[in-house]
């Protein structure tokens, strides 16, 4: 009868939430320690992914027929794409003007 049980009964919702918490904390650590702007944005992507896992898990476990969480996750991915494109354009501009992508060396707010 093991096979007859659904995914929801085999894996509690908490496991997904803990996975999401671990990924989010890793992203926070990356944002705090990385000095290169591109790597900071990569860590932000990790955090956005953690939030999306949360959305999907709640959608699947609490209201599987309304899938609002899925719609939210789609919008999260859309915003992440826009954010990555814009942020990397800014980093490129920064590198061209200042010759560095290290955020510690770019603390003047104007040039």
């Amino acid at each position: 009868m093991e096979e007859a049980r659904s995914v929801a009964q085999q894996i509690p919702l908490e496991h997904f939430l803990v996975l999401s918490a671990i990924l989010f904390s890793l992203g926070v650590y990356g944002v705090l320690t990385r000095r290169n702007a591109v790597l900071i944005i990569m860590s932000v992507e990790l955090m956005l992914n953690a939030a999306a896992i949360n959305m999907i898990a709640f959608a699947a476990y609490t209201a599987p027929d309304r899938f609002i969480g899925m719609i939210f996750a789609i919008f999260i991915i859309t915003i992440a794409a826009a954010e990555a494109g814009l942020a990397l354009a800014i980093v490129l501009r920064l590198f061209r003007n200042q010759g560095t992508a290290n955020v510690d060396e770019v603390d003047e707010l104007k040039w």
Partner: protein
Amino acid sequence: MTIAQVIFYLFAALAVGGGLGVVLMRNAVYAALFLILSLLAVAGIYILLASEFLALVQILIYGGAITVIFLFALMLTRVADLSESLIGAQWPLAAGASALLMGLLATAVATSDWPGDAAGEITSIPFPVLGEALFGQWAAPFEIASLVLLVALIGAIVIAREEEGE
């Protein structure tokens, strides 16, 4: 251990391992490659949660497009040879802060009472139903999202463009 549990823990370990690689790697290009691993593992988690559409979107947009942009940005800003400056001096403090945050979140998850824990089947949403919802009930946010993408596109071109005077 059932098959679903094995799959979940495998993908969860891959996602966390990839995330560790992203934040710890000394080589920026390796960090970007670990990001791909982590994002693909998250796509596997989505499939486990019967969200196939989202898994496809994740692989196409994250695994493909966004990581390629990251690799291009790393190439154009030439950081691969500056590996010693990738991690700041305050990393022990940051590790403590993020470990504290993770502990807080895990405690909150463990002590809360979640609804629908004994939910039955996780039903897969058919693509047509999802499309109808996206273009019907959620049409206004969808249009705004497309506007955001357009603005980001134009903005990225304007910001990154080479000016004549430079």
